[in-house]
């Protein structure tokens, strides 16, 4: 009767804990997890709609005239051309109608034209998203392993020296300006010590691996090009570590308090009294319930990682969405900035949806309440 066996039973049958409710309700009530899922997905869809509305409103807040930005000097002087351009782009329509047009455009993958690259924003994003996913993915993996590990150690060694050191270190991690740390790391590891490779995703002169996922490390491994893999992993290491420092700090603090809370529970004391080995108590009795708040924070942390990429990619010349966002923001290329906001917002939404679902899988109380 370990805590790990109980929820899996709920997932399969759902009979035991729902029996009480099933008597009163209809089909949905008998599948509380399905209802939980549907509710979460509907919320996420509404929020996604909200995100499009926010970016649309912000685009229209801009004092500048988009016609002026897109037409040449001579064309601006001719009111007929300007009116024609505005009509072509639907700008003569009322705002709600413009929004609907914008929305239907988005559904067809039309994010507008970047004023900087003169290409559709969707094409730009498609090119840059894999690089950012690789970087953020590596960073979140590092953060989860290190953050949860440090947090568990800090909790188990509460109020001892290692706990205090980890506390100061994690506070340090959440206080460092990422953009500055990236610069310092680049200077120290690449310029001074020359142990890190320079900017970019692989060594110059090396051909990228055949495109499968767009993640160079994965693609190189898939095609068995281990020299490319080593180069890609080497290039990934420093920016990923810089990016991860903040989330490591966050997860360490969180894991510590989550584990401490569980350690104080009666059933843990009972397990100890029963003489179970510490390892068994930690992995089977403590970590699972502690994972619920940890996963929530990890989802939120991913958002901060995506934010961080904007600051880190610029310095490591990492050709991802972050650098694209940085360049677009500095040149006030609004369609591109909004495209990034939209895509990153939706990615973040999906991740939090996944987190919510995981939450339900791990903790039956969530999906049953």
């Amino acid at each position, binding site marked *: 009767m370990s805590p790990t066996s109980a929820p899996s039973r709920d997932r399969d049958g759902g009979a035991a804990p729902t029996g009480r409710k099933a008597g009163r309700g209809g089909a949905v009530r008998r599948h509380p997890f399905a209802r939980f899922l549907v509710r979460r997905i509907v919320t996420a869809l509404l*929020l*996604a709609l*909200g*995100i499009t509305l*926010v*970016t649309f409103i*912000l*685009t229209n*807040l*801009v*004092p500048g005239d988009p016609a002026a930005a897109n037409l040449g000097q001579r064309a601006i002087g001719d009111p007929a051309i300007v009116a024609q351009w505005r009509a072509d782009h639907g700008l003569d329509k009322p705002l709600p109608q413009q929004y609907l047009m914008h929305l239907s455009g988005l559904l067809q993958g039309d994010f507008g034209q970047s004023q900087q690259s003169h290409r559709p924003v969707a094409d730009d994003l498609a090119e840059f998203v894999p690089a950012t996913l690789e970087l953020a993915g590596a960073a979140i993996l590092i953060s989860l392993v290190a953050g949860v590990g440090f947090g568990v150690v800090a909790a188990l060694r509460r109020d001892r020296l290692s706990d205090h050191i980890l*506390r*100061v270190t994690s*506070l*340090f991690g*959440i*206080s*460092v*300006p*990422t*953009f*500055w740390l990236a*610069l*310092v790391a*680049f*200077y120290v590891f690449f*310029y001074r010590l020359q142990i890190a490779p320079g900017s970019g995703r692989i060594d110059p002169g090396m051909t990228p691996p055949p495109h499968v996922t767009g993640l160079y490390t994965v693609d190189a491994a898939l095609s068995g090009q281990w020299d490319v893999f080593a180069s890609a992993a080497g290039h990934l290491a420093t920016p990923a570590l810089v990016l991860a420092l903040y989330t490591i700090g*966050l997860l360490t*603090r*969180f894991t510590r*308090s989550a584990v401490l*809370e569980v350690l104080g529970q009666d059933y843990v004391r009972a397990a100890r009294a029963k003489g179970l080995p510490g390892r068994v108590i930690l992995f089977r009795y403590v970590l699972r319930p502690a994972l619920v*708040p940890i996963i*929530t*924070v990890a989802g*939120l*942390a991913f*958002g*901060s990682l*995506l*934010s*961080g990429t*904007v*600051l880190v990619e*610029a310095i490591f010349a990492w050709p991802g969405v972050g650098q694209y*966002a*940085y360049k*677009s*923001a*500095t040149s*006030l290329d*609004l369609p591109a*900035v*909004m495209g*990034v*906001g939209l895509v*990153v*917002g939706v990615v*973040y*939404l999906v991740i939090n949806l996944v987190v919510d679902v995981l939450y339900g899988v791990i903790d039956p109380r969530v999906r049953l309440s």
Partner: protein
Amino acid sequence: MIRRKTALESRGLTRRLPEAWRQPLAIVGGVVALAWIVVALAAPVLAPHDPLAQELPRLAPPGPGHWFGTDQLGRDILSRVLWGARVSIPLTLLLVALSVLIGGLLGACAGYFGRWVDETIMRLADLVFAFPTIILAMVVAAALGASLGNAVLAVLVVAWPAYARVTRGLVLGIREREFVVSGRLLGFSAWRSLRVDVLPNVTGPVMVLATLDIGTALLLLSGLSFLGLGAKPPSPEWGAMVASGVEVFDSWWVATFPGLAILTVVLAFNFLGDTLRDALDPRTARAIKERAI
């Protein structure tokens, strides 16, 4: 769980606060934060040079006469870092104060009035939470145009919902308690009831959140300036100074010292906030960190 504890918490606040101040981390944080505030006030006296004057040799490494070196325009970096405190610290404090005010008020209204007021405000907050902070701040700042004032506005847009959420949760718990209900029965107006009965019970946890948020706000604000969406040159803003160091990164001192300035301020307030939070109910820790970023 949070709701029931709040009234007790605030009563305990005054009792436990002195204890928090005796923690080494809080002392270090307090001293450093205070030192920076003094620097911000006394920068004109402390700074050896005019922060804008381009009168020194360009890109001179740290040495006598210019301890932090000079930048690519021959300006003294130490003076610029000291003057930078006058730009960043007051703006950050103002920013957090405004977030507390706006977020707290909206959250209190949402919690107290419930129904459609609650729905409208909290869905709006959810929408802001749906974006990673700097992305939304960047989008807002880009739309409003690059200036320090707009950067503050952009950070405000992403910062208020955290306070709204926390305040709402606290108010929800207090609203139904006997002393609030009896106040209403005595004929208190909604505003008076909020002000007299509810607000004092909410202040403690919100203040902890605000202390922790000072660091985050400064990081965001300087991050926007780093991206070119905040302070304009030649303003000695720390984020913008780090950005100018990117161009000449082999002259390490240009970016290092303003970065250290940001780090020490943020660290000081995080030390303070973290200790305060521990001193209060550990459960509020979760409510506070739920917004985390």
